[in-house]
């Protein structure tokens, strides 16, 4: 019989059934202990949760050889991993990924407050042994994720804008992967916050809502640039995105009035957050959740990582492409001025927040962009704009090309769609857009 690979037995590494570890002390006395978590690192390595300073700990430091007994959660087939202790990690992506999963395991097994990850003990897998037995039939393979990935890849390959790419990813999640609740958040690097640009499955879109990097499942995935998956969401405040109190009081520009509510589920049971990276840079986070336990397995994580990688590449590519040449300005319906009651736009320079008719719309870079657009419109009658001029405008404080300008414009566009139907942004070409104004504008500072 072919020896199983670690990939073949990943279902045993989901934490559903605790593993058991045999070690041996220097004096030759064996020891057996339950291990909450045997975590898949790669095809040659696993990481075991180090939670207590116990005999197992003493033994592996003295004698690195260990044997783990795993049970398949569906077939009841046993596997033995013959492993050798290498080192312990107490921070970083692997540690954080395990810590989040362990929080879920602890919650699931009524061990909250008892299970705490002190370290990730990394072991080399020397041999995997399938133990003979009378296993139950293997579960049928779930709906082909490879086909879903193919369709996602095709959708993304056709995209020419960040908006289309996000729509393509949402379509894949909901139509092909049976995900009901998802969102994409982009990184504001300077502020170390993540802002929602797309979502589906929630009563309100939450576009524009913000989280801090490091906060909750999403923030940890961003900070550590690693997938974070919990199959049984704990009430531990650390991971509960929705339970968070409002932003810190000591940050003056974050008044409650400028806070768009986080759209996520109030009582999620399963969550999976995957960083969106491109060229080694963090762009944002792709996040899915469910009101049911154990909704996302390692195969879902694999699929989301593949989707996030493609999304990151597309976002980077469409933003780096040269802008379309200047179109004939005359074609634009300049300064339509609009009719009806004036829209009153109020700008607060302290945080670039903009209110329309005293209702909060947006702040930060997207707020500064809107303020520039409406000023140019009112003062010069301009309605046609290019991404390039925004990048070059020192008053906007765009850090550099890596600032995800397209995503900020999309955020602005969507906020306007939701909050102010008489003021719109329409794309007119690659790197070009138009401000459409249906009402007279009245601009006020402060």
């Amino acid at each position, binding site marked *: 019989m072919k020896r199983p690979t670690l990939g073949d037995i990943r279902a045993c590494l989901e934490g559903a059934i605790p593993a058991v570890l045999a070690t*041996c002390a220097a004096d030759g006395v064996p020891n057996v*202990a339950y291990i909450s978590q045997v975590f898949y690192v790669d095809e040659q390595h696993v990481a075991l949760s180090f939670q207590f300073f116990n005999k197992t700990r003493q033994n592996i430091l003295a004698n690195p050889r260990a044997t783990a007994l795993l049970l398949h959660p569906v077939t009841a087939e046993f596997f033995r991993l013959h492993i050798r202790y290498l080192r312990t990690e107490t921070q970083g992506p692997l540690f954080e990924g395990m810590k989040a999963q362990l929080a879920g395991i602890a919650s699931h097994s009524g061990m909250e407050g008892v299970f705490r990850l002190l370290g990730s003990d990394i072991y080399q897998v020397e041999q995997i042994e399938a133990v003979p*037995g009378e296993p139950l039939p293997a579960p049928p393979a779930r709906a082909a994720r490879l086909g879903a990935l193919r369709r996602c890849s095709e959708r993304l390959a056709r995209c020419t804008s960040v908006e289309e790419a996000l729509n393509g990813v949402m379509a894949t999640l909901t139509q092909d992967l049976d995900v009901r609740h998802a969102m994409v958040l982009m990184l504001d690097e300077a502020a170390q916050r993540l802002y929602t640009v797309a979502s589906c499955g929630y009563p309100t879109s939450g576009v524009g809502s913000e989280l801090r990097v490091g906060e909750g499942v999403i923030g940890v995935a961003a900070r550590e640039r690693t997938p974070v998956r919990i199959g049984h969401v704990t009430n531990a405040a650390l991971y509960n995105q929705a339970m968070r109190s409002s932003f810190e009081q000591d940050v003056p520009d974050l008044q409650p009035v400028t806070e768009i509510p986080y759209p996520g589920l109030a009582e999620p049971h399963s969550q999976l957050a995957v960083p969106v990276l491109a060229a080694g840079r963090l762009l944002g986070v792709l996040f899915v959740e469910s009101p049911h336990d154990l909704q996302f397995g390692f195969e879902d994580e694999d699929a989301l990582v593949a989707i996030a990688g493609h999304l990151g590449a597309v976002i980077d590519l469409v933003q780096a492409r040269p802008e379309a040449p200047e179109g004939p300005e005359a074609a634009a319906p300049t300064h339509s001025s609009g009719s009806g009651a004036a829209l009153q736009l109020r700008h607060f320079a302290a945080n670039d927040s903009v209110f329309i008719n005293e209702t909060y719309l947006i702040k930060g870079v997207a707020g500064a962009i809107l303020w520039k657009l409406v000023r140019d419109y009112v003062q010069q009658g301009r309605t046609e704009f290019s991404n390039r001029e925004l990048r070059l405008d020192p008053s906007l404080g765009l850090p550099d090309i890596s600032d995800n300008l397209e995503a900020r414009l999309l955020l602005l566009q969507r906020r306007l769609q939701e909050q102010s139907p008489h003021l719109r942004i329409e794309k007119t070409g690659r790197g070009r857009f138009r401000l459409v104004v249906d009402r007279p504008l009245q601009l006020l500072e402060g």
Partner: protein
Amino acid sequence: MPAPVRLPDDLLALMRRGVSVIAGSRDAAMRPSIMRAVGSDMSADGRSVTLYLVRAQSRQLLQDIAATGHVAVVFSEPATHRTVQLKGSRATSRQAGPQDQAVLARYLASMEQEIARVGYPPEMTRAMLAHRLEDVVAVTFEPDEAYDQTPGPRAGTSLGGRP
């Protein structure tokens, strides 16, 4: 002389009832071996423990026990994580026979309930503990060490025997 192992009554009751049993040993090169038992039994005075292993699943473990006499056995109640580890250094093995059948059947019945409490159907338990009597080996030992291994602040507390 080390203090004799004195297991609390509630732990003894749990072990007599039949909960998860995992056994380990090691070879001359200190490589650990491990397998789940398909049954367990306690002597009337509580001093001697017998566990049942399927030979084909436990070749290395049985070889190590025969060669070294060392055995470490964990009893754990799945629903509560109540756990105790016993260690022996003079374990002996014998082929299981018809006299063991009732013990094995009682153990399976108990485990079906224990595992059902954590959400798995009886088929799962029966597959996990599947065996034919002629393939089963009974390993008996008198524990000379015992430790409370329930996760939490008291984990690792000695329950008697050598430190």
